[in-house]
């Protein structure tokens, strides 16, 4: 789920950056350091929306670096166990399929795919129901539920399921017709 939260970070700045554009440099460095990283607590930092406050800089002993406590607002993405997400399928194999929801990669194993869906190999491997009405292949959209997450320094990985009610393929052509 996406959140818009205020985070704080101590940024260290080299004295060469001091000058009229100190603040800009600081913000640029912040963006470079933080955007795209991941933490266990907040999840994946998608983008920094604004800098709320930059505190007084403290010169470190021994080096000339100055530490600024920066408060900024960022959009973060964090998947939770039990959360329902829509994701796009990126790879299908006989163990299950991989889907991506934003920066998060989710694996749905074939244990958690409804039993009536069988794996068909071929140049476009997919999971299909016995009557062929529902197909999960690369670039299909699915709604899935997260049942386990694991956070690394650089990425979040989840295990998901589509075996519950209301989960599964979204953009089935038959499905779209209903809403037209």
């Amino acid at each position: 789920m996406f959140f818009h939260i205020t985070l704080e970070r101590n940024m260290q700045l080299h004295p060469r950056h001091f000058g009229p554009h100190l603040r800009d440099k600081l913000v640029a460095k912040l963006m470079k350091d933080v955007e795209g990283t991941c933490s266990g607590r907040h999840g994946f930092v998608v983008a920094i929306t604004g800098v709320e406050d930059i505190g007084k800089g403290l010169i470190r002993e021994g080096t000339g670096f100055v530490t600024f406590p920066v408060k900024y607002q960022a959009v973060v993405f964090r998947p939770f166990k039990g959360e329902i997400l829509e994701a796009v399928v990126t790879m299908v194999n006989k163990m299950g399929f991989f889907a991506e929801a934003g920066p998060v990669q989710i694996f749905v194993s074939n244990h958690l795919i409804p039993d009536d869906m069988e794996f068909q190999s071929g140049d476009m491997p997919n999971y299909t129901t016995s009557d062929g009405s529902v197909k999960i292949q690369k670039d299909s959209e699915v709604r899935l539920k997260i049942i386990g997450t694991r956070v690394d320094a650089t990425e979040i990985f989840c295990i998901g399921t589509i075996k519950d009610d209301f989960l599964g393929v979204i953009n089935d052509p038959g499905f779209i017709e209903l809403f037209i």
Partner: protein
Amino acid sequence: MLTGKQNVFDFRMHGLSSDLRGELTRSYGPDQAQRVAEPDSICTGVGARVDSKTSYEKTTFLSPDARRALASSRSSLPLLHHSSVSDRTIQCSRMSLAAESPLQSSSSSEDFAALLDAELELASSDTSPNEEEAENDDENDLQEPRTKRRKVEDFESLEDIETPMMVETNQEHIGTSGVVKNDICPPHPGFFKGLCMRCGQLEEDDGSGVAFGYIHKDLKLGTREIERLRGADHKKLLHEKKLVLILDLDHTLLNSTRLADISSEEEYLLRQVESMKDDPDRSLFKLDSMHMLTKLRPFVHNFLKEASSIFEMYVYTMAERSYAMEIVKLLDPGKVYFDSKVITQADCTQRHQKGLDVVLGAESIVVILDDTEAVWHRHKENLIQMERYHFFASSCRQFGFGAKSLSELMKDERESDGALATILNVLKQAHQMFFDPVLGPDSSSRDVRQVLKGIRHEILQGCKIVFSRVFPSKSPAQDQPIWKMAERLGATCCTEVDPSVTHVVSMDTGTQKSRWALQNEKFLVSPYWIEATNFLWQRQKEDDFPISNLRSRNA
């Protein structure tokens, strides 16, 4: 106060749109939502309660204090294990997002709540939005009594291992029908990046699984799951009338050499490979990234095409992954034959040994094509040994042959009856015999090893062989590899001559047995006759292997 009947407040919540869920939360408020949570069931995001009987625990927007309270009240319950994952990720300090949750509202919509309650068949709607102000302490107290008030069976089942509960909840609340594949999770089927594929739990390091790095680099499967997959694969392949073929790369399908090892007589190849760059039928390739030159064995493309119609193919090589992937790109540009079935040295569970444990195919239908027998120690019966393809001089040197290599002689194996063509015929024959309609429709108990044995046994049927000066007479004759090879080919071997002997195999025409053979008009052949028969799967003409040849070979 919501009662235990709220267990019905379940997955159906998920079917509700986020608007509706938002409504609910607004009516119940986040604090209320926390209280509504029973120790064994947690709210999903917005106040919706998921039943204790759900198989997967859900974390929530509970404040960390609430979560701790829940966790402590459930100290005996396995939930802790699940929440430990989230605890690791959600640290103890209050998450700012909980504080900023837009869900805090005091507007109540009692009618809405009542409607929902009625719909979800709740006995009574005890909660009232007015109670949202309850403090965390109250929360704790409230949870205790609720715990006690819960149905006894729930409580007991929770106290036990979580898993039996998971099974019944699965069958009760999950919409899918039918028998599931043994949904209980302590035999975790496999792990993906350390998370169980079925229940999402973190992997405990007991090292019992087999890593299947060639399918996906983070995949690890448990033994039971491997068996299950093998069984499913077996059935599917038998249904499609296919067997499994495992191919070695080096010296079997191709021959490679480092650019540095090219001899002077092979330099013309470098020019040739440049000029052939656009030829679609070429078999000589330069791998720039690895500084190697590769020559595919003649007939290899046809072989792969024809074999793929009757076999599911794997590549199993002792080379490194990078090299293997380059080669597979040459052999299979369309990714049709070997899509994620390239097993390399890194996937082997035993050093210097290839094993079928990393292959998801049943052993009884696997045929292996390899030039080396030594690496397939455990699966000799499935192996068809191929004649080595020595195209480059460096390859000959490596194996100690003094003769000139095919490249230096500017020759090559014939396509029409080279090694691959011969083996293809053998494979087709084995396939035909395996799926022989005469044997009936049920092929699940047949074993391709038996079929291969049968075919081999026919080759030298009726031959009786005596060996002379082929191996030292002091060592036990029956253990000699050439003896065993001859016996596998269906011949009978003995140590002494007698009138029923048909062949004398010798390295020297001057021995007693050799002279006896010449006197009695028996076949006198060199040991290469047996080897050639073994590689070509056909009884060779004895005249092609006279012993006098040996002298010139050794010279």
